[in-house]
């Protein structure tokens, strides 16, 4: 028995395909990225080793810090706006009957199955000053309908709205599953004791949902840091670099500004920030759970 389970050849045959794929597609590229980050490679032709020059440039690059700030802004938007709304909606949804529950859940999640490419262009049209949906809505409420939300100053808020809107259903669904896992007898006991919906939500739902909320908050921060696709198509970081995000910035530097080496140094910083924040958030929540 034990012998069959420790046959080295069998083990190797089982894990090798996975390891090879992973090394080839994830690990090797990251190492290569570190290598190129130390060069002044433009993408074509020869290049020289320039040591840490790229990273020193990165520290003084205001656009990089701006993109990091935008990520944090997005994370705050997720945590302070999207998630509270998602929890409340999930809690109400939990109280509905069968058919209505399924219907609303389906409607809320629908935007999530649609490609980011479509969502980005759809919102580009919604924000369009001449025929966009937003301006028509503003006109109905008596405003002046020639607002260009993607222009200077407001663009970052316009981008945040799209991202919060698009991710709402996903967050709602996770909270909804969490609430479904709460023992219904708790609510019955509470209502016998005279608790109304508000009190049972605050005293039962929220405390029991703590682990789910923690997972969701971690996911929200990571998602915000990783954001690229929607911004790439919606504004490509513009106007100027107002709506820049890290992933989009490194892409732009490498392929539009032909600073491939510098792009890679942003990439290295980007990976480090993502890994670090995951570790830090897990650590914080673990300590809290133990305390």
């Amino acid at each position: 028995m034990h012998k069959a389970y420790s046959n080295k050849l069998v083990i190797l045959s089982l894990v090798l395909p996975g390891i090879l794929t992973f090394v080839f597609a994830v690990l090797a590229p990251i190492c290569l990225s570190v290598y190129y980050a130390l060069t002044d490679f433009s993408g074509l032709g020869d290049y020289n080793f320039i040591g840490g020059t790229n990273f020193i440039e990165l520290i003084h690059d205001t656009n990089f810090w701006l993109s990091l700030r935008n990520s944090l802004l997005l994370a705050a938007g997720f945590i302070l706006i999207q998630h509270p709304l998602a929890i409340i909606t999930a809690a109400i949804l939990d109280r509905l009957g069968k058919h209505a529950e399924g219907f609303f859940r389906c409607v809320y999640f629908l935007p999530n199955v649609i490609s980011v490419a479509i969502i980005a262009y759809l919102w580009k049209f919604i924000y369009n000053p001449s025929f966009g949906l937003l301006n028509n809505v503003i006109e109905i409420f008596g405003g002046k309908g020639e607002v260009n939300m993607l222009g200077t100053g407001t663009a970052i808020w316009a981008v945040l709205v799209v991202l919060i809107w698009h991710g709402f259903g996903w967050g709602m669904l996770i909270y909804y599953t969490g609430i479904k896992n709460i023992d219904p007898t708790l609510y019955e006991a509470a209502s016998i004791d005279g608790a109304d919906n508000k009190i049972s939500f605050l005293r039962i739902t929220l405390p029991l949902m703590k682990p789910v909320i923690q997972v969701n908050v971690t996911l929200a921060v990571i998602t915000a840091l990783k954001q690229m696709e929607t911004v790439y198509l919606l504004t490509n970081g513009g106007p100027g670099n107002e709506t820049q995000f890290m992933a989009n910035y490194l892409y732009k530097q490498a392929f539009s500004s032909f600073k491939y080496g510098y792009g890679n140094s942003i990439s290295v910083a980007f990976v480090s920030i993502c890994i670090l924040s995951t570790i830090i958030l897990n650590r914080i929540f673990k300590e809290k759970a133990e305390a």
Partner: protein
Amino acid sequence: MNNDSVINKRPNPTSRIIMWSILILFAVVQIFPLIWLVNFSLVSNNEMFTNGLLVWPEKLRFDNYVKAFIDGHFLLYLKNSVLINVLAVIIVLFISVCMAFACSRMYWKLSKVVKGLILLGMMIPIHATLLPNYMIYDRLQINDSIWALLIPYIAFSLPQGLFLTCSFMESIPREIEEAALIDGCGIYSVIFIIITPLLKTSLVTVSIMTFLNNWNEFMMASTYLNSPKWRTLPFSVLEFTGLYSSNYAVQFAVMSLTAAPMVIMYFMLNKHITKGVAMGAVKG
């Protein structure tokens, strides 16, 4: 109208009105942009510039869809998307089951290290590999081939697949496979004939997560591919904005059209997808 338990839970009519208005408000906010999208895909280009939220077209312009279908290379890109995603799902399932068995059942020194290494992949953002992978694929001349998409799609779905399969496999009692081994079954037949059918629930979840993640991906596709040969469905939309930059109605049509396959699939597999996402997210 409602069943008794619902009424018992919410006796207060005002709070019921508030609850329903919240639900309906969010539903409208989530769904109205999509209704608007379908509506504008059926009007003529001139009708779009009228005031009001929705337009009642004089004639439903299905020719927008014909243009979108033909000039958007809909069939080719749909075929590519289906082929690449199905292959990715199958390979991810295969590798996940193999690795999960080796890591959670078999005895070897590096099992924890290997599992940890792959799970570390969950923290690494896809976009950080865009630049170096572009160079690697360029050198290996696999740019513009199916491999340029398939390999990263598999690699980035693998961590979650392995994680879910591992945690599910641990809940399967070992006695079943031990009995099979004593009866003279080989390790491979134990894995694929005895264990795999028991993993059905988690395999469905892994498939759904892999499919959802990769179906809508276009960043890698647009970086690694430079001819239409292997382009996937999102490219119908991306190419159209250049091609028909002033004919907006046709652009709306191409967007509705490319969204359709996934929306139809969602309606068909609604329950499985809901469950899969919930399970994947809670455990991931």
